[in-house]
Structure formats: structure tokens, C-alpha cells
């Protein structure tokens, strides 16, 4: 009886907080909402070190596991607010410089989570999410590469919001790849390669440029992430570590964007006009 009472209370609290969350998003939607948000999930290891009393604190991937939960809730908030695209920087080509054990752990974690997402009814059927995996996929181990390919194939025809995961990715590598592809397309045509040709061959072709790039833990650099696509992107660097990135930081992030939206649109419009 007591257990039933407790679960009733927790369910009620959960429903009330869900309603309040929806109400808050309704208020924010009076202003401009970003269509595409990109996330650099920095601070997982620092979080694990800071909270050494975590149950699985000895597991080197513990910070990343907590970070994954934070990622899922942030993606949920994004889609509930009506955002079309979410891009996350999961693994950079520079991250291969980490210890082999940590790299292997991260790769196993990514495979585990990709497989989990494919069995998540909410993500696939109800939200109709389309998954993109961007990066130098030849560099990642075969099991992870196969899991990534499966995720893309299964969700290829989905029409809902887009989740793009950058794995073994770097912006300079993406630009190099775009130049190679543009040269392949152009040879024999006798035409010059233009900016449009390069943009057509980027991993992000067909996706709108990000409106916000959030890098947590207060770091101010982009670390080779979406450098080409971020001309008119609002760059934000909240001090919270990634596992600490909650609804409050998310709401503040959207509100900060709303303040500068008009200015960025104006700058974008001026460049489009001059092209």
C-alpha cells in the first residue's frame, strides 16, 4: 500500500514537472527557436574525477555514461521545443591520441549506445528520428562502423528530427574530403570549383547551418568542429560540465540565442545579398 502511495506521488510529481516543462517551452516559443543546435559535450572526465563517490567511479567510462544520459535528455528537450536538427561531437580525430584503453572503452560505449537507440521505440517510431553519422568512418573499429551504418540505414527514410553524430570527425578533414569530392565531380567539365560545389560535398550537405554551438565546461574553442558551417552561429560556453547540463542551462542557452537572433539574421542576409 505504501509502495503504491509512493509510486503515485512520484508519478504525480513527474506529470506535474512534465506539464511545467511544456508550459515553459510554450513561453519560449513566443520568440525565435533555433532550428539546429550543435553540442560539444566537454567535461565528462572532469565530472567523473570530481564525483569520485559515483557507484561505478572506478570505471573510466563512468563520466561518459552519465554524459550520455545528459545527452538523451537534452535531445528530448530540443525535439519538444520543435528543433529540427541536433548535432553532437561524439569523437574527434584528435581523440585517438588518448590512451588505447580509453579509446576502446569509448568505442564500445558508442556501439552500445547506437544499438540501444535502435531499440528505443520513442526515438525511432514515435519521434521518427533520422540518424546521420559524420566523420572519417574508416578510422573507427569495424563493429562500431557497422553499428553506425545500421543506424543510418534503419532511419534513412524517417521524416522527423535529425540527429547527427560526429565520429572520427574534424572540420579540416571534412573540408579536405569536400575538395577531393569536388575535384572528382569537376574533372572533365572544364568548370571552376566554387564555394557551392564544396558545400555540396560536405558531410553536412542538405542540413541547415547550426544556429547555436554549445561547448560546456566553459571552454572557449571549437576544437575543429563545424568551422565551415558556423559563420553566423551563436557560440556559447556555459561553465557547467556536460553531465551537469540540465534544463536550466538549456533554457538559458535558448534565451541567449533569442537576444542575438535578429543581429545574426541581419548579418547573414547581408552576405547572401552580396553573393
Amino acid at each position, binding site marked *: 500500500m505504501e509502495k503504491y502511495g509512493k509510486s503515485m506521488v512520484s508519478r504525480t510529481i513527474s506529470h506535474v514537472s512534465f506539464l511545467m516543462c511544456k508550459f515553459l517551452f510554450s513561453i519560449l516559443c513566443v520568440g525565435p527557436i533555433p532550428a539546429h543546435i550543435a553540442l560539444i559535450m566537454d567535461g565528462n572526465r572532469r565530472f567523473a574525477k570530481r564525483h569520485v563517490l559515483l557507484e561505478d567511479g572506478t570505471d573510466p567510462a563512468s563520466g561518459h555514461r552519465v554524459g550520455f544520459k545528459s545527452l538523451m535528455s537534452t535531445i528530448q528537450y530540443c525535439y519538444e*521545443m520543435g528543433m529540427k536538427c541536433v548535432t553532437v561531437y561524439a569523437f574527434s580525430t584528435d581523440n585517438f591520441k*588518448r590512451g588505447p584503453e580509453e579509446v576502446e572503452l569509448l568505442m564500445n560505449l558508442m556501439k552500445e549506445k547506437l544499438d540501444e537507440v535502435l531499440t528505443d521505440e520513442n526515438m525511432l517510431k514515435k519521434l521518427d528520428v533520422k540518424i546521420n553519422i559524420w566523420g572519417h568512418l574508416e578510422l573507427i573499429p569495424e563493429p562500431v562502423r557497422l553499428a553506425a551504418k545500421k543506424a543510418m540505414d534503419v532511419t534513412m527514410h524517417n521524416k522527423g528530427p535529425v540527429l547527427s553524430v560526429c565520429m572520427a570527425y574534424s572540420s579540416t578533414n571534412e573540408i579536405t574530403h569536400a575538395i577531393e569530392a569536388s575535384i572528382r565531380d569537376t574533372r572533365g567539365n572544364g568548370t571552376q*570549383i566554387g564555394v557551392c560545389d564544396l558545400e555540396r560535398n560536405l558531410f553536412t550537405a542538405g542540413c541547415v547551418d547550426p544556429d547555436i554551438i554549445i561547448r560546456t565546461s566553459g571552454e572557449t574553442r571549437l*576544437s575543429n568542429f563545424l568551422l565551415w558551417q558556423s559563420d*553566423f552561429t551563436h557560440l556559447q560556453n556555459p561553465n557547467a560540465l556536460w553531465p551537469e547540463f540540465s534544463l536550466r542551462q538549456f533554457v538559458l542557452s535558448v534565451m541567449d540565442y533569442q537576444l542575438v537572433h535578429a543581429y545574426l539574421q541581419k548579418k547573414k542576409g547581408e552576405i547572401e545579398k552580396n553573393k
Partner: protein
Amino acid sequence: MKNDHHRKERDATLFHAISAYQRTTIANELACIFSRYFYSVNGSYKILISPSKMIEASVIASPILGILYYLLHAIVCLAHIWSYLIYQIQCLIISSGLLPKYQNLKLDRLQHLAVVIDSEEAKNKSKVHQLLLWLSDVGVKYVILYDIEGVMKKSNKAFQKSTATQSDTKCLDFDLNVPSIFDVFGMTVEVISYTDGKEAVAKAANYLFSKFSTNQEGTLDGLEPKFTEPDISSALKAVGHDGPEPDLLLVYGPARCHLGFPAWRMRYTEIVHMGRLSSMKFSAIVKVFYDFSKKHQNYGK
């Protein structure tokens, strides 16, 4: 009398009917809104209608939500004002010279500094001039000035043209599509604009294509172009758009946004928003340089 009674009855019926209709309309609207919430409350994540569409559907809720929206922004604005006041106090303390740690800045890690300025603010030449003077005072040796429309490039080229002699005019490059480099206040200053970004990469791609075509004997069919990042850097140098990667990038404008700064050159650049150029402070620059000197980068490790 009887007609009056009928008319009153008819009016009352009409009144009730209209009231009922209005109540029904209002009730329908409210039910519409709450049914969305109730559907969601059942634990499903199904989004039938995005919150923005809900607002369009609701005539009553929109003004209330609008008021709450501005109220929420006003509250957050107060928090921003508080942070701004604390920042101003910090700058005041730094400029008073009370803190010795800000007196002797170690700029070993700062080899190249970039400054992105909003084009409207870049028209204020005296402010740009003052900024360069301050940067020189702090000890910066290489500055990359960027504004999206090339306002600083145009004014620099115009200045060069006006002071050049007859013989200089022929050999000086007044092309606005290439970077402009000159020395001032003991610093090397490179002035670039939007055309030195993506268009420069396109020029480098064409250069690589022509080199690729020249190097291959016979037909190009079946041959795959394969380049490395150093190849792209060399190509950018060949087309006159190379340049060092800045360690630190200061943004002067309303928003923290690099506004098209050459993508190839800011892989690991620390990007700091300084506010508007019109309200720039020397102490703010000192604070940023001090914070930068304490930064530690893992470079992915």
C-alpha cells in the same frame, strides 16, 4: 404585449445560444490546449503539434504567453546586468593596478592574435587605431584584423593608395580579394575579410585540381584525388591566402560569433567575446590575456 414577450423570449434564447456558443468555443480552445498536455501526460513522447503551433491555435493563450515571455527575459536580463556589474568592477580593479598578477603578463603562448570586429563598428577608425595601440602596449607581435565586409581592408588599401608614389602604385597590390599586411606600432597587422575564408578554399581547390591534372599522364579517369591537410595548407599558401592560426580570437560586436573568419585557421583558437568596440576597455584586454595565459589545452587527449 404578446409580441414583446415573444421578442424577449427569442432574445433570451439567442443570448443563451450565443453565450453557449462562446462558452463552447472557449471550452473547445481550452480543451484543445489541455488535450495536448493530457495526451503527453500519458507517458508518450508523441508530439502531435509543436508548442509554436499550439500558440497559433490559441487566441487567449498568446497574449498571456507573450507577457510571460518578456517577463522571463526581463528576469534573465537582471542576472546579465548583475554579471556585467561584477565584470566592470573586476576591470576597475585591474586598471587601478592593485593586483600585481595583471601587471606582468606572460604572452609566450600568444604568438598570433585575431580580432573580429563587426563591420559597422569597424568604420570607427579611431577606435580601431586605439585598439591596435593597446595591443602593441601589451606586447602583441602579430594581429589579424577581420571584419566580414572588408571595411578595414578597404580603408587600409585607400590609405596605402593615397600615400603611395607614382612608381609604388604599379607594384603595390590593391586587390581587395587578398589579405593586406603591414607593420604598425611594432606589430605585423594582417587585415582580412569574408573573401579570405571560403572563397580562398575554393581557389585552393582549383589550384589543387590544376596541379592534379598536370601531374597525371594521360586520362584522369579512374584516378582518385587524394590530399592531406598539409596539401590544403600549401595550396592556400600558393594562392596567397595562407596565414598563421591565431591562438586567441577577440570578438568585438553584439554577439559571440566569428562571422566567417577563415575556417582553416581557427581549429584550436580560443574565442572570447569582448562586447562592443565602442565600449572597449584596456583592462578587459589585460584580463583576457591573463585568463588565456592560464589556459591549458589537451588537443583531444
